[in-house]
């Protein structure tokens, strides 16, 4: 069975809740575990927070498009934005073995996404960033 939805939010932190609520509704129709719902919520928070915080140095209002595709037991999320080119995969993984004093927080969001999803990728096409994550459910 194949199902998909597409929606968009503005580049404000408050709008992330719209994305997590929409995703929860989508997943509730698929009989997925609570664990998957939580993991997708975390991924939406991390990816959208990164885009909203770093992609738009012009300070203008922008639209971020989110596509959700469910096919053959896999969920794919595609985030598209017209912001400055930014490849999250280029961020170095944090050193998760460091002591409290030395620990830095940078890169932790993308690192969580990498660990919670099966596959992540990035493309720059037609002036847009496309960030794609996939997970077997």
């Amino acid at each position, binding site marked *: 069975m194949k199902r998909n939805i597409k929606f968009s939010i503005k580049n404000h932190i408050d709008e992330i809740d719209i994305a*997590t609520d929409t995703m929860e509704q989508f997943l509730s129709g698929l009989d997925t575990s609570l664990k998957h719902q939580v993991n997708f*919520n975390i991924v939406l*928070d*991390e990816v959208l927070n990164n885009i909203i915080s770093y992609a738009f140095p012009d300070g203008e209002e922008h639209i971020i498009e989110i596509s959700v595709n469910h096919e053959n037991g896999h969920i794919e999320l595609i985030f598209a934005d017209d912001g400055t080119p930014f490849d999250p995969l280029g961020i170095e993984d*944090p050193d*998760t073995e460091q002591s*409290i004093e030395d620990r830095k927080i940078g890169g*932790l*969001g993308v690192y*969580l996404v990498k660990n919670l999803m099966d596959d992540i990728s990035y493309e720059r096409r037609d002036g847009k960033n496309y960030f794609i994550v996939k997970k077997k459910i």
Partner: protein
Amino acid sequence: MEIKKNKEGNVQIIELHGRLDSNSSKDLDAVFNELYERSEIEILCDMKGLDYISSAGLRVLLMAVKTINKKKGKLALCNMNEFVQEVFEIAGFTPLFFIFQDRQEALDKVFK
């Protein structure tokens, strides 16, 4: 997210309810700052009502433990659900904090 505060002896207890994410983490940060201003540096974070945490929440907790250690205070966490525990494990945060099953264990072992 909803944050409730109450006190048990000298220990300030912060109860977290809902999601600790990009949107709500600034509220928790504000609560910590308000406690430091009152020199409340013995703090137990009860996560019983916490659904999940993202890196924005981890950032606030890391800043809190750094600040509280510097002030010679104590910060402990308790009642984490499996999703919060998993994020702590992935991020390598588990060894950085005093983490307990429940409130009583934290009070007995850290704040005596």
